[in-house]
């Protein structure tokens, strides 16, 4: 019963995946507090479970740690799973990882609750009217083959979430074998606009941001501590940044309309009128130019007219703050300017991002705090990055009745598509819908055939993170325990079976996905820098470390963003009927809502409001007072698309012209911990798209609010008194001129 | 020598007092005022004690003893337990802290005192007792009774005295 991280036994042992993954007498942890010192055998637990054969390192009562990869989001953190008696107990960070360095966010740790979730699909289900009928895998595969029979490649589509590594390769191969090019990679809250803007500004979609090297970070709504790109990695950088270079503590300035977790940690949180981030960026450039920073001709031309008075007027940021900010940026270099989803969620989002990236250029940060990321030398394995433009295309095609067979995997568009798209109705027009699913989520419920997937903790895989922290790496995902349910299959195995249906000969050497993975990696062993080692050793080492670090070359970074074509609209005029901007907030743990059924996440208070298990409408206290709204008043929030109801929470960190509702809740399916909790703001999003990239403009929806007349208790951790420290010495604060950080340990 | 009991009932303490005085003044063979006479009354009446003469009461000694032992037992039980309990350090206080132990010792002091006093009462008052051979329920109502024990020969003398003082009723133990 005794073990701990201190006696970690990183499994450096050959993987004979039979006996030791077996669940061994897990009764040890059950109900503890029966009577007094009763030492008779507990009823129902009379048997000791033993192994038939056991590897020498498998010792009952001592945990074994296996390295794998977190699949809860796309950041690709390397995890270290604690396994006891064949059960995975806890996910910890892999200290050797450049991405998370042994750290884990709550979302990642909740991976075990995804794995053990009672609401997972356990059998292949075939639609029979309104109900699902259990069928065997053989029948399911036969059915797919039957449905694909005589269907041309154009009539087949595959809708997937972000996917990388060998799974992506296999998926591509399968579609190729079908003759289809219709792979739609959809992620509801991906930084797609930013990728395009980065590509334009730096020549790469995802450069490396060195927060730790910056003295000032100016973030336009990039919630890098919460949900943006690779939060655990950025959190570590942030910690270093706070300690500072040479004891000079880094300064974080966050510009946004609704406070994010990052905003809550900022030295200065500047609230701006929604959508005017680009204007502010240009205003700063203009002011920098005025204070002596050399601006190139086109830049100077582009920022002309963005004088302080106008910018202050448009954005709502006071001139005094603007001056201080400019002085700070000028004085402390290098700095780093980040454009986050809040800046990009508008019809002119690309323009905002371009303006912000231009600021980096002007400040000379490119190459210092923005560096080229290492590239993976296997282009077929680099991630297929999700975006929302894909969904729009798919939706249009579906509406046109183009597809006879549609596969969905790792995405839940029925839940996350904006209400204005009427995706659910369009989906019904597809002929035969196959969903590869962990849960019966809203999309799986619409499918004709639901195929249950292994969880990430019982499946094989490789993953290439989109954001490379240091050098390039390929992450290994391996089973931490035996399958929980006999009738689930790994996505890789399913794709392999499917592709074998089409091209049996080509894949006959691979008995299963594990074989495929091992074979494929062994063939590129040389390219992975292990040419000399023999196959078994290479394989053992790979599985032991869980990470393949690649020598990979760095991409080229172009440092010549141009201001050409930069055309920012004037600050949006007030809409008389729909007077509020709706900011659908992406929270660190619930994101687009696919993990809402994990109770740890539901009960983990939202950091800023401390609300749990429910949705809420954030509104500024002054505005609320104006409208006679108090906490707990149920508000009807209506957009042109639809309306939802949720209770008000008075939140000072929001622009008075905006309200905010968190995404991720409001499921009608998914499972017992998700269904019926909160509301889904995706439902009321208007179909407004970014003019350049075609991405959904998440922040562009305008709403009006009205009181329903009902008042309920907001379920939150903060006391009714509102968490005011009341002059007690509880949470103390000092300013930088009062401390000597360099003297600290 | 056989002793016989005689019970006489009177309506007031005054009568009873006169009887006792007379009995004390008369010397009767086989009857001793101090040993063989019992006065029963429905209420606690201090005068009874006066005219019967001072008799010692030992209950207080029980009380003293009980209280002291209770206190001592309390203190040592508690301190001993604190000194031997597996896990003792609590709240930065000493293992054997005085204030709580005083409180508990005090309670045990009282507990011992009360318990042993009641015990002493039972012992001193001879309770529980069998009922004496002659008893009238009117004693529990409103009558004063004088129970005497004497040799058979003396009964008539006693009876005469009782009658003289207007005894309401005289019972005599049936002869054997």
């Amino acid at each position: 019963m005794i073990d701990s991280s201190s006696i970690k036994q990183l499994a450096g042992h050959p993987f004979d995946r039979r006996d030791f993954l077996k669940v061994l007498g897990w009764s040890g942890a059950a109900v503890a507090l029966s009577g007094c010192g009763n030492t008779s055998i507990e009823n129902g637990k009379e048997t000791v479970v033993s192994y038939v054969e056991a590897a020498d390192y498998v010792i009952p009562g001592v945990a074994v740690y296996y390295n794998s990869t977190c699949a809860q989001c796309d950041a690709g953190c390397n995890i270290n799973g604690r396994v006891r008696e064949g059960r995975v107990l806890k996910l910890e960070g892999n200290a050797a990882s450049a991405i998370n360095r042994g750290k884990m966010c709550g979302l990642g740790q909740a991976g075990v609750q995804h794995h053990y979730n009672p609401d997972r699909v356990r059998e292949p289900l075939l639609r029979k009217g309104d109900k699902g009928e259990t069928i065997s895998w053989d029948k399911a595969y036969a059915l797919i083959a039957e449905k694909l029979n005589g269907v041309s490649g154009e009539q087949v589509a595959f809708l997937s979430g972000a996917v990388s590594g060998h799974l992506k390769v296999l998926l591509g191969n399968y579609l190729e074998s079908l003759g289809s090019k219709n792979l739609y990679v959809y992620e509801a809250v991906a930084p797609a606009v930013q990728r395009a803007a980065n590509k334009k500004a730096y020549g790469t979609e995802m450069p490396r941001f060195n927060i730790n090297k910056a003295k000032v970070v100016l973030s336009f709504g990039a919630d890098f501590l919460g949900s943006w790109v690779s939060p655990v990695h950025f959190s570590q950088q942030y910690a270093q940044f706070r300690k500072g270079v040479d004891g000079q503590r880094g300064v974080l300035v966050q510009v946004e309309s609704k406070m994010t977790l990052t905003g809550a940690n900022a030295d200065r949180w500047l609230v701006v009128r929604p959508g005017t981030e680009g204007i502010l960026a240009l205003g700063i450039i203009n002011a920098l130019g005025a204070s002596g920073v050399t601006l190139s001709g086109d830049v100077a031309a582009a920022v002309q007219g963005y004088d302080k008075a106008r910018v202050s007027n448009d954005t709502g940021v006071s001139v005094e703050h603007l001056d201080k900010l400019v002085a700070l940026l000028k004085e402390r270099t290098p700095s780093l300017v980040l454009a986050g989803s809040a800046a990009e969620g508008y019809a002119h989002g690309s323009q905002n991002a371009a303006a912000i990236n231009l600021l980096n250029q002007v400040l000379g940060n490119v190459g210092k705090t923005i560096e080229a990321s290492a590239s993976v030398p296997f282009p077929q394995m680099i991630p297929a990055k999700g975006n929302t433009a894909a969904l729009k295309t798919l939706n249009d095609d579906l509406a046109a009745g183009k597809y006879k067979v549609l596969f969905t995997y790792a995405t839940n568009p029925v839940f996350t598509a904006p209400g204005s798209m009427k995706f659910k109705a369009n989906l019904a027009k597809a002929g035969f819908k196959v969903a590869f699913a962990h849960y019966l989520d809203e999309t799986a419920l619409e499918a004709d055939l639901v195929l249950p997937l292994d969880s990430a903790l019982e499946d094989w895989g490789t993953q290439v993170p989109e954001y490379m922290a240091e050098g390039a790496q390929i992450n290994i995902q391996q089973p931490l325990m035996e399958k929980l349910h006999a009738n689930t299959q790994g996505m890789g195995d399913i794709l392999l079976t499917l592709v074998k249906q089409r091209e049996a000969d080509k894949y006959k050497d691979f008995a299963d996905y594990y074989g495929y993975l091992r074979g494929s990696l062994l063939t590129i062993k040389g390219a992975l820098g292990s040419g000399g080692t023999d196959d078994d050793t290479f394989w053992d080492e790979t599985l032991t470390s869980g990470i393949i670090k690649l020598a990979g070359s760095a991409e080229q970074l172009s440092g010549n963003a141009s201001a050409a074509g930069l055309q920012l609209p004037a600050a949006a005029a007030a809409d008389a009927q729909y007077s509020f901007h709706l900011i659908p907030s992406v929270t660190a743990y619930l994101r687009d809502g696919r993990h809402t059924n994990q109770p740890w996440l539901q009960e983990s208070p939202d950091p800023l409001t401390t609300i749990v298990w429910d949705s809420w409408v954030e509104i500024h206290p002054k505005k609320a007072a104006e409208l006679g709204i108090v906490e707990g008043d149920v508000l009807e929030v209506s957009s042109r698309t639809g309306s939802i109801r949720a209770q008000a929470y008075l939140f000072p960190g929001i622009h008075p012209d905006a309200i905010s509702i968190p995404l991720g809740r409001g499921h009608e399916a998914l499972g017992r911990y998700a269904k019926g909790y909160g509301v889904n703001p995706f439902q009321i999003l208007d179909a407004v798209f970014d003019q350049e990239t075609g991405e959904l403009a998440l922040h562009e929806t305008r709403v009006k609010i009205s009181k329903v007349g009902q008042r309920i208790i907001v379920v939150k951790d903060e006391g009714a008194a509102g968490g005011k420290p009341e002059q007690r010495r509880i949470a103390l604060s000092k300013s930088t001129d009062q401390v000597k950080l360099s003297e600290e340990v | 020598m056989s002793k016989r009991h005689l019970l006489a009932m009177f309506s007031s303490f005054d009568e009873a007092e006169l009887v006792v005085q007379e009995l004390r003044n008369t010397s009767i063979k086989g009857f001793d005022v101090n040993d063989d006479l019992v006065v029963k009354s429905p209420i606690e009446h201090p005068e009874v004690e006066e005219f019967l003469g001072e008799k010692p009461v030992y209950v207080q000694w029980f009380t003293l003893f009980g209280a002291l032992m209770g206190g001592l037992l309390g203190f040592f039980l508690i301190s001993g337990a604190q000194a031997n309990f597996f896990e003792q350090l609590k709240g930065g206080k000493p293992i054997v802290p005085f204030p709580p132990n005083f409180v508990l010792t005090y309670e045990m002091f009282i507990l011992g005192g009360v318990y042993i006093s009641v015990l002493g009462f039972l012992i001193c008052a001879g309770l529980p007792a069998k009922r004496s051979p002659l008893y009238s329920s009117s004693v529990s109502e409103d009558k004063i009774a004088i129970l005497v024990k004497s040799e058979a020969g003396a009964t008539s003398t006693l009876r005469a005295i009782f009658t003289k003082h207007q005894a309401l009723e005289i019972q005599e133990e049936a002869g054997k």
Partner: protein
Amino acid sequence: MSVSNLLENWSQFRHFHPVDDKPHDPYKWAMSIDIDACSGCNACSVACYAENNIPVVGKERFQHGQQMHWMRIERYWPDHDFDFPEQGAEFLPMMCQQCEAAPCETVCPVGATNHTADGLNSQIYNRCIGSRYCSANCPFKVRYFNWYDYPTDETVWPAEMNRQLNPDVSVRGKGVMEKCTFCVQRLRAAEVTAKGEGRIVREGEVQTACQQACPTSAISFGNLVDPESRVHKQWQAQQVEMNVDEQEKDKEPGGSHLRGYRILEELRPYPSVMYLERVRESAI
């Protein structure tokens, strides 16, 4: 013989702790939390749920204030009037402070919570009868009571979910008090291993679950009496003493430039957790 024991060792029994006591040796577990580094992300709290078999109580019970998070992240707004929180929020991770002179310990009627030799405030579930006096007397309100029988509650640990339970930690039934233990199961394992090897636990050898998860490494944990440990160095550098109710540095006129402080230390519970004040840039 207890009476002879009592008399022979009288002076031992009359020791006040930690004032005139012998120091903890070889272990005194302590923590320091840099709330300037803390981003309020809740990873520690989830790690605590995972490590310590904490029940998820559900919406309705949470609404009734019956949540069980041993580690909670408190969010305070700065103490002055403002339209917008321009300096952000203040996040404070709060869990059992493992006080050296814990107010909860003296009041437990059955002695289910005591001070251990390695400086922890122990909570023995199987001894607890649930009088909740400890919680009543806790200034930090970090003790959590099992209002319901969570182990048998299907909504809390349904059939498969209970396989995640950590066998090193008891699963608490209804009617007992629980709280942060500094991951005592890990500490004890490390202590036992070290003992077998004839040494003391080395710095970094053992981590609490929250410390391990914390993405910004805001939490340091270790052996306060080990001069090699980071916690020891931090406490020393911040001039925070264990057994005082007001730090010398705080008596300086104009305050100190050191950030270390302990919450409610004026009540003299002598907490084992030192916090480092949040810092905000003065230039902007």
